[in-house]
């Protein structure tokens, strides 16, 4: 086959091996396979996991910080830490809905303006210059959160603010703020109840808007918030059980507030060690929780998650892993191009035929006109006409 195409495939394979965490299966001969069987094969293959795959093809994250004001610095830091983690592990900004009050980085009380740190050592600025906040300030409301989850937006809402998931999407929902028994406070003005969350997730199931959901929540009495969920394929983790408070981890003396919460800090300690191809499971993550350090008992709800946390990889929810299959068949992109089937060998002798040249070197659609600056702008017709005019005047005047 064409040398260039072969080169592209090989390089693509090489890069895909680096980028994706999954195995590469090269399908030699596509014509013989049944398409449906191929698809089922692909989807169940998973990311090369051990045992049953999750069957997801894309990852999304909904990261919500429900607090505002300066003294809730740590909640912004929690959310931005999670944002950084999922981005690092491969979920692109287009697949992340970030909802923040976003009033701490440029707060006049911030000793380090335009920064958000989650550590007193200030090793890493989470705010940076390339974060994309989708809902900021007063847009973080209960209504908007539920609209995001259920996908019921008004017409004018842009795509970047929508959760455009399908039935093969794994969604990470992370919420942090001030909560109580079966409620979560939004922006000091309203609250969402656990039944609302449950019903929203039920709507998502009805509309086939998720494959699996991992619901993380870091508030006081957090476990009460996931108690009412009744849809399948939902895994939930909370920072504390009903009746317990969640605590912040440590203060930064110069910033003047607490900078991170204990449960999120514990999660991050594990997550920061992971890379994209990591095969650690969620069970391993949950085993790292130490109640004496977190000072509260983290709650895990697995009854709605039949796959089991031993089979679920951390990167199933935190990473943007994608299964890749390469094919040696070419797509036709123009009339002249011929589709070369895989079993036809074309000798490459270092020279391109004219047909191949045509496909490779297409004529540009526009012509570049090079304009050189003229220094001599008084053109000859003008001089002639003007001279004619002057002589005419002189001649007529002397008559």
């Amino acid at each position: 086959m064409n040398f260039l195409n072969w080169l592209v495939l090989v390089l693509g394979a090489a890069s895909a091996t680096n980028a994706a965490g999954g195995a590469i299966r090269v399908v030699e001969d596509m014509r013989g396979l049944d398409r449906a069987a191929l698809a089922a094969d692909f989807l169940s293959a998973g990311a090369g996991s051990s045992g049953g795959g999750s069957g997801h093809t894309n990852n999304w994250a909904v990261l919500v910080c429900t607090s505002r004001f300066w003294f809730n610095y740590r909640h912004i830091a929690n959310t931005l830490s999670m944002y950084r983690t999922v981005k690092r592990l491969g979920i692109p900004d287009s697949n992340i809905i970030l909802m923040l009050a976003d009033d701490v980085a440029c707060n006049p009380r911030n000793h380090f303006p335009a920064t958000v740190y989650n550590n007193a050592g200030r090793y890493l600025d989470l705010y940076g210059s390339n974060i994309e906040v989708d809902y900021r300030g007063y847009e973080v409301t209960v209504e908007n959160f539920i609209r995001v989850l259920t996908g019921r937006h008004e017409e004018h809402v842009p795509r970047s603010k929508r959760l455009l998931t399908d039935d093969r999407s794994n969604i990470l929902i992370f919420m942090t703020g001030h909560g109580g028994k079966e409620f979560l406070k939004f922006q000091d003005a309203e609250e969402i109840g656990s039944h609302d969350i449950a019903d929203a997730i039920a709507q998502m199931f009805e509309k086939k808007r998720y494959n699996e959901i991992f619901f993380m929540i870091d508030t006081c009495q957090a476990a009460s918030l996931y108690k009412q969920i009744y849809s399948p394929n939902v895994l939930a983790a909370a920072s504390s059980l009903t009746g317990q408070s969640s605590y912040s981890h440590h203060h930064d003396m110069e910033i003047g507030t607490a900078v991170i919460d204990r449960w999120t800090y514990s999660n991050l300690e594990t997550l920061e060690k992971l890379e994209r191809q990591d095969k650690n499971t969620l069970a391993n993550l949950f085993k790292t929780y130490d109640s004496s350090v977190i000072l509260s008992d983290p709650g895990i709800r697995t009854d709605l998650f039949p796959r089991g946390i031993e089979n679920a990889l951390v990167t199933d929810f935190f990473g943007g892993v994608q299964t890749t299959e390469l094919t040696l068949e070419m797509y036709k992109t123009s009339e002249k191009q011929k589709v070369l089937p895989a079993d036809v060998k074309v000798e490459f002798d270092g020279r391109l035929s004219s047909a191949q040249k045509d496909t490779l070197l297409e004529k540009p659609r526009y012509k570049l006109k090079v304009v050189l600056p003229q220094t001599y702008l008084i053109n000859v017709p003008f001089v002639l006409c003007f001279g004619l005019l002057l002589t005419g005047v002189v001649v007529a005047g002397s008559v």
Partner: protein
Amino acid sequence: MEVLAVLGVVIRLALVQRTDFARTLDQRVEVSTPVTSFKRMQEGVFLWRNNINPYEGGVFHQAPLLLALFHVLDDRMIPYLFILLDILVAKMLVEIAKHRALDLKNQTWRPFFPSKEEKEALLAHESAESKTVTKESGVKKSDPTIPTESALVPLFVGVVYLLNPLSIVTCLARSMLVFNTAAVVTGVYFAVKGRQVYSMFFLALASYVSMYPVMFVLPCSMLIAKSLKVKIWPNIIFEQPFSASPVSFLLFATFTIALLGVSNVLMGSWDFLESTYGVILLVPDLQPNTGLWWYIFIEMFDQFRLFFLLVFQVFVVAFVLPLSLKFREHPLFVVAVFGIIIATFKSYPAVGDVAAYIPFVFMYQELFKYMKNLYIITHLGFSTCILLPLFYNLWIYAGSGNANFFYAITLIVGVAQVLLLGDFIGAMVRREWERGEGYAFRGRRIEVMLK
């Protein structure tokens, strides 16, 4: 008198060579307007040299032939070109003034006879000659009611132009008004001499540079008719109600079209029309100047803009026909009056317009004794010369005044010029009347009482 003329030239040369006034004067809004600014000309030439259409930017509003002229001229020669043009203007003003002086000397006064006997005696004495004589010629005056007037010194008119600080400032700032003035004065000069073609060519050039000199075509054609017919025929023809040379209009139209055609050949398209004449007519650039337009058009709502543009433009040209008809025997006077009207009411006036009409006004010195408001006008002129830049500085640079300060002074400029206009025309009307039917009331104050 010659010394003063030379002094005017020397002042210009000294200021050009020794000082840096040219740059600062070019930035003063009283001197340079969007359609006459030299800085914009430099911008246009630069754009054109780099193969960009200078009219596309909305900055350059001057005629293409001027663009071509400044394209070929060397930078260092340009101030001397303007000084040369000023000298030519002064020379031609002197020539026009000579003609005017002759005209003044030849003016007839209807004699006034207190009693019948004196009338018989005088008629018998002066049967052959119908001219009056003035004191200077040495012959005894026949009629004591005729006012004693000193003859017009032509060189004085040239000196008035050269030593006028307003014209010095305009020349230093290299404003395009110098071209305008030169073309108009040349057109009037040739009209006075009776050279129809040249006169109309220069008037076409003047109206090509800025539109308003088109008003001068009618009085200049009357001047041509007067000078041609006086040379050929006696005064009988002159008695006709309105004699203007109709060929002049045709020539003017031809030359205008020819100039526009040549510009089209130079620029390659007709786009320049919108940027040059469109700007003068539609006034999109509302940079403050000494005129009356910018303030009202800045605060005008768009739906009224066209109407007021029409009104303002018509106001400038509406006086052409009536004044020409009224003063058909004095076309040069009409030229002077049109100069004042243009300077007061045109869309982008500057002090150069004032400097252009003052010599023409000084050619009619015999009217000054009939004018009632000269004292006020001169003092208003002096005070506005001081207050205009002062209030502009206060508004723009110091920030402690606002546009109303500057606008008030432009209003005073308008008031002064309108007073001058009214007085000037009134003086001419009075004088003409006294020369003719009003012989019984010469030199006397007239009170009208209703019984």
